[in-house]
């Protein structure tokens, strides 16, 4: 049974009214993998993660987490699946009415009913792992810089030791040095809790640092996936255009089609 994928998606369709965002997407994430899904802005990368978390209900298709179907799941069963998954949001999404340590310890206190004192100690350890000093613990999120917010968000995502961690554009909006630091922390933290990683980004440098596998999302489907070291020889014109950041190529042709 060890080859049951951690996440297995088949023929996923998700539309908002007439806006068909995902159109028959297939994807497998094996246990222990760090898969990065690359794709342009607005191609539905965040929508994909929200479908897996059960925050959006797809019109058609199947999503399995550890072999369990998630689409249509409700109540306690859905919450049990969510408990396996940690997520770092694009804007960190820290709770701004709670202090830093309460943010980090949130899953322990509320989902696992850990006593607050104990939860605080675990939170401080997690914060140390992502390079945050104990003095930060009692600050409010509004007092932090963007890079520090990301670190707190990362610490919050790993405190409950989830089996799967999602990263939504972890480096977007950060300067290259802080971005590289966050990437390093993501790799270390994921390894430390032994989690499977699924990252979405349009930052190729970051994607190469984090991933051992990559997949490209385009027009609602995964049009290429493979090992990270093969991405430069994919032979796929869309992938080549994207990773080299060229203005000319099949992707631009499509954009012109839309306006023409």
């Amino acid at each position, binding site marked *: 049974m060890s080859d049951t994928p951690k996440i297995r998606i088949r023929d996923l369709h998700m539309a908002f009214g007439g806006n068909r965002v995902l159109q028959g997407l297939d994807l497998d994430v094996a246990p222990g993998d760090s898969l990065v899904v690359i794709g342009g802005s607005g191609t539905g990368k965040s929508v994909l993660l*929200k479908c897996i*978390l059960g*925050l959006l209900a797809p019109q058609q298709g199947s999503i399995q987490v550890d072999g369990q179907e998630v689409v249509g799941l409700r109540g306690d069963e859905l*919450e049990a699946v*969510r*408990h396996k*998954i*940690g*997520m770092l*949001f*694009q*804007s960190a*999404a*820290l*709770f*701004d*009415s709670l202090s830093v340590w309460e943010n980090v310890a*949130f*899953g322990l206190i*509320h*989902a696992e009913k850990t006593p607050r004192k104990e939860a605080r100690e675990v939170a401080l350890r997690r914060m140390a792992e992502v390079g945050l000093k104990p003095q930060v613990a009692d600050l409010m999120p509004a007092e932090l810089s963007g890079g520090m917010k990301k670190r707190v968000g990362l610490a*919050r995502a790993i405190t*409950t030791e989830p089996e799967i961690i999602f990263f939504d554009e972890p480096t977007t909006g950060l300067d290259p040095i802080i971005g590289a630091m966050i990437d390093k922390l993501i790799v270390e933290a994921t390894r430390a809790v032994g989690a499977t990683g699924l990252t979405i980004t349009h930052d190729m440098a970051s994607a190469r640092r984090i991933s051992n596998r990559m997949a490209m999302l385009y027009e609602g489907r995964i049009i290429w996936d493979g090992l990270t070291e093969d991405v430069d020889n994919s032979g796929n014109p869309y992938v080549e255009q994207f990773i080299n950041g060229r203005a000319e190529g099949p992707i631009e042709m499509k954009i012109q089609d839309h306006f023409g």
Partner: protein
Amino acid sequence: MIPVLQPLGRTFLVFLEAAGRLALFTGEAVSHCLRPPFYPRAVLRQILDIGYYSLPVVGLTAIFTGMVLALQSYTGFARFSAESAIPNVVVVSITRELGPVLAGLMVAGRVGAAMAAEIGTMRVTEQIDALTTLATNPFKYLIAPRLIAATFVLPILVLIADIIGVFGGYLVSTYKLGFNGATYISNTIEFLEFQDVFSGLVKAAVFGFLIALMGCYNGFHSRGGAQGVGAATTNAVVSASILILSFNYLITEAFFAR
């Protein structure tokens, strides 16, 4: 005919859809108020926010209302030499109507708006999604504590407003209109019926629920950044105010129309 009916029909459908969505939201919210787990910490914080910090504005509203009520009744009743009815008029108007309605409207402006803004911001900055990924139900953690606290706290606020309002009437009557203080108080107590105060407190509980419901509903469904949050805030206050005034009529009719 058709061009007139078409937009009418469409508006009606949109209205039905909104009403259905609100009904579902209310049902889910209430069911989470009744089932564990509860978040006592969150409820206490809301009680403090809604109750304690609303005291100044509700107190000021009540005292001026009581004062003006005494003054206006005097100018009216002096024409019939019926000045002795003033204590009665003041206490009945305040406990039955003005206490709950004015406190409700003030709290809707203060607390309903703040709830919509806070929950709306949490929605557009993905904090509500983050709650869900941390296996915490936003209905339980965000909405139920607000509904419980508001329903519980508004009657207490209104009781305090009643007392302050009557005191306002007393001040004006004794210092300005020449009433005897002891007579004013004994008249007030003599005429007051349990039903007057009780109906006001029932109104207060209903208004508290409506204020929190509108704040949470509009915040929870806000879309599209700062502008969406602004619209949610306005909608929360306007819809809560209209609901307060219409439910005020319905409850009054249920209590007193015989």
